[in-house]
């Protein structure tokens, strides 16, 4: 029997191509539709509307979304991003004011306190901010990458922002070793008294970015330092050997804090406690006459029982209200006008957003301002009379959390430490013409000078970071230089930086020598730009780059009884009134520019002669009032006299019209 060869069914070539094409399309569609859904969880908006505090008994996840358990190996630090986003959309949260500085689309609003890149050796005080505020530099303009920014200023960053900008090119960045510096929700929201923000600072110093948030809690302890690990170290793979294991960052959880479901209780109230705000937003007066901290008072609002977040509010997007008039956020939420000083205390009639805009919000007392002509309410910011240090004849120095790390003890707490912040400086606001108090820092930095492409700008100034300057002119900074007139061998010790005119000239010469382009360099300090002059001396010139970084004072608000003007009109209109004739210190980290001051009126575009003439009028004001009231009395008396005489005549005339009666 022969087998008939069976004919194999040969598929039609076009049918194969067709089926293949259909399958490809189906897979492609499936890939488009299904893949993203699987890759990212749907965003959740968790807003209950209840004023009750939600109890956060939650499971924890690491930055790769893996469940965290105390016995896991390797044990990874929990991440607020992956743990919280189950209920609170992280991408919405990161729009918040504390995290959106690096977003160029965000309106910078009125200036706030910038960061200060300070270095005493090179005499550098560079105001930096990712926000485009006047007289501050963008970090990338001075060669500072987000990585370096985090290392320098991470101690008071709440995470997010530059901490998550890992895509910026920087050969020195070690994001893979350190991890991202994600938003640390606990920095603001932790209600636990055991929460330790100092740990955050320590972990940033060790480059333990990914571990920092966990280390602050009493749930976990973090050991080791990413800074000591090689660039090839992968924290998710763990250490290669015993030696690495000893130095590698590691987290140890308190197992007793995990319940049977693997959940952990976090005390995270929706409204951040004031103590959390204070960690980054405190300040203290320093200097020879400054009071001890215990002798000073907190903001009158807080003393009265309000909290920071009663006024500075936010939704899930964390765009915290800054509560000044004209705030960009107010365009979206007109009712915000009721949370400014004026809106809360006086009411905001223009907003017309219901009872909130009627004034007296949160029980705010409506000020009477007895005897205060209304022009003051139009020409002055509320804070002029009510906030900041009470003005004296000279501005005083303060130190702040973010600029001076006042939460920490150490040599950096010297009263002369950089940056030298002075307040209050009364400045006229260019936008609305009002006069208001500012804190002010005069920049000091080395810079390259080039001809500006813009016609109206004489020269373009590009600041150099302190590291760059020191690398280029190390010898000039370190060598012993005699100041003019000093005896042989005596090193100048005039200032901690030792930046005498001679040294500045030497550094400028060395910068030029080391520069490939042989360009021109200058040093900015004390409100001037100094460069090597023709006669071998420093030549000073005015330049916009030397103008101070200034930001409005919002707090501390003083009680009404301690406001300016409660004493006499001459508190502000006297011959020596600090608000007009006070001296503004122009601190300099160099020996040049020492002792320079400016008059307060120079920041207000006011004529001192006019101010003096106006002050003189107050000498005659008591007499003016007496004469005025006497004159008014005479006028009133004559008017009344003739009014009564007229009335009497009228009555007499009316009497003549009465019926005469029988003869």
């Amino acid at each position, binding site marked *: 029997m022969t087998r008939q060869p069976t004919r194999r069914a040969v598929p039609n070539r076009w049918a194969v191509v067709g089926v293949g094409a259909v399958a490809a399309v189906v897979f492609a569609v499936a890939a488009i539709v299904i893949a993203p859904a699987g890759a990212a969880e749907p965003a959740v908006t968790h807003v209950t509307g209840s004023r009750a505090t939600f109890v956060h008994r939650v499971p924890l996840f690491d930055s790769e979304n893996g469940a965290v358990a105390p016995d896991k190996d390797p044990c990874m630090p929990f991440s607020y991003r992956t743990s919280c986003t189950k209920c609170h959309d992280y991408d919405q949260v990161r729009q918040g004011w504390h995290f959106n500085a690096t977003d160029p689309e965000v309106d910078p609003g009125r200036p706030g306190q910038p960061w200060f890149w300070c270095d005493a050796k090179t005499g550098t005080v560079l105001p930096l901010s990712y926000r485009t505020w006047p007289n501050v530099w963008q970090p990338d303009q001075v060669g500072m990458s987000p990585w370096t920014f985090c290392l320098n200023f991470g101690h008071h960053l709440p995470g997010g922002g530059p901490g998550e900008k890992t895509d910026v090119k920087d050969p020195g960045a070690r994001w893979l070793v350190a991890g991202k510096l994600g938003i640390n929700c606990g920095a603001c929201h932790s209600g636990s008294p055991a929460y330790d923000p100092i740990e955050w600072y320590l972990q940033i110093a060790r480059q333990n970015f990914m571990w920092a948030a966990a280390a602050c809690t009493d749930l976990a302890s973090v050991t080791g330092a990413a800074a000591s690990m090689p660039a090839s170290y992968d924290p998710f793979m763990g250490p290669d050997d015993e030696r690495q294991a000893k130095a590698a960052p590691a987290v140890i959880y308190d197992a007793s804090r995990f319940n049977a479901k693997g959940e952990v209780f976090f005390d995270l109230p929706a409204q951040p406690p004031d103590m959390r705000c204070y960690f980054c937003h405190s300040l203290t007066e320093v200097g020879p006459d400054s009071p001890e901290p215990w002798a000073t008072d907190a903001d009158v609002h807080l003393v009265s029982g309000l909290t920071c977040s009663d006024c500075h509010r936010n939704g899930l997007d964390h765009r915290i209200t800054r509560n000044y008039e004209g705030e960009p956020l107010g365009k979206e939420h007109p009712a915000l006008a009721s949370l400014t000083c004026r809106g809360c205390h*006086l009411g905001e009639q223009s907003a017309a957003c219901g009872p909130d805009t009627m004034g007296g919000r949160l029980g705010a007392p409506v*000020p*009477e*301002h*007895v*005897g*205060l*002509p*209304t*022009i003051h*309410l*139009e*020409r002055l910011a509320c804070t002029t009379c009510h906030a900041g240090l009470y003005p004296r004849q000279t501005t005083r120095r303060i130190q702040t959390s973010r600029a001076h790390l006042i939460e920490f003890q150490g040599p950096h707490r010297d009263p002369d430490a950089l940056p030298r912040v002075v307040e209050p400086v009364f400045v006229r606001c260019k936008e609305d013409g009002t006069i208001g108090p500012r804190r002010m820092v005069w920049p000091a930095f080395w810079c390259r000078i080039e001809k500006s492409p813009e016609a109206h700008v004489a020269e373009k100034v590009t600041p150099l970071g302190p590291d760059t300057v020191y690398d280029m002119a190390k010898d000039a900074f370190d060598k012993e230089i005699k100041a003019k007139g000093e005896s042989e061998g005596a090193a100048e010790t005039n200032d901690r930086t030792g930046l005498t005119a001679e040294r500045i000239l030497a550094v400028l010469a060395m910068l030029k020598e080391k520069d490939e382009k042989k360009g021109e360099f200058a040093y900015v300090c004390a409100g001037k730009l100094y460069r090597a002059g023709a006669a071998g001396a420093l030549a000073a010139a005015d330049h916009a780059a030397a103008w101070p970084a200034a930001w409005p004072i919002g707090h501390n608000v003083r009680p009404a009884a301690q406001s300016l003007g409660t004493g006499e009109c001459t508190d502000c209109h006297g011959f020596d009134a600090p608000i007009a004739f006070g001296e503004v210190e122009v601190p300099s980290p160099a020996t040049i520019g020492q002792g320079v001051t400016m008059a307060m009126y120079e920041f207000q575009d006011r*004529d001192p002669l*006019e101010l003096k*003439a*106006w002050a003189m*009028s107050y000498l005659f*004001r008591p007499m*003016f*009032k007496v*004469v*005025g*009231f006497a*004159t*008014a009395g*005479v*006028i*009133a008396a*004559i*008017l009344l*006299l*003739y009014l009564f*005489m*007229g009335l009497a005549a009228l009555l007499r005339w009316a009497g003549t019209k009465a019926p005469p009666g029988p003869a």
Partner: protein
Amino acid sequence: MSLFQILSILGIGGCVGVALLHYVLIARRQPHPGHGERRVRRYNLWERLIHVVLAVTFLVLAVTGFWASIGWDGPMSGYNLMIHTTCGAVFAVCVAVSLLTWAADHALARHDSRWLARGGGFSTRGDLPAGRFSACDKIYFWLAGLLTLAALLSMLLSMITLLGTDGQHLMYHVHRYSTLVLVILTLWHGYATSVAKRGGVGAILSGRVSRSWARRYHPLWGGGRGEPQQAGTQPD
């Protein structure tokens, strides 16, 4: 533009407009009462001095005040305010002195009602009964005193620790509106006594007027208070 600015422009502009119309339609067609005749004294040196000081300070006050109000609708400040307040004090004292000086002459009399009933300054007839001052002058005099008192007190009260913000606002508006009315009335007064009444400027500067001027505009001047008497009989 604020309500005050609108009212200021309407008020002052309207006053000037009415005065122009009056001049074109009525005043220009009136026969000149004549000059060069024997002249009689209308104002003594004291009266002229007060009047001149009042006029100058008023002018300065109006310019400095309304320059700010109409110009940028804001409160005054700086030198402008200093000049305004200084002149304001002098003006107020002069108003008090002028009240003491002229109050008796401005007491309303029976013939004043006839002056008003016949159309006053808008009448083309020449036999309006008026003593040393016409009914229009008298009304202006008393209103000016009243408005000055309002303007003065509104500023004085805002300078002492008595009124809060609402009170200060009220006083500010009282000051603005009282002075606006005063300015409008004074503009009309100036026109009516100097342009419409030909020879009026000379009267205030030299203190003398012609007999025919006196007979035409103040036919009852020279008698007792409110007592009709032939004008021009007052001794030189």
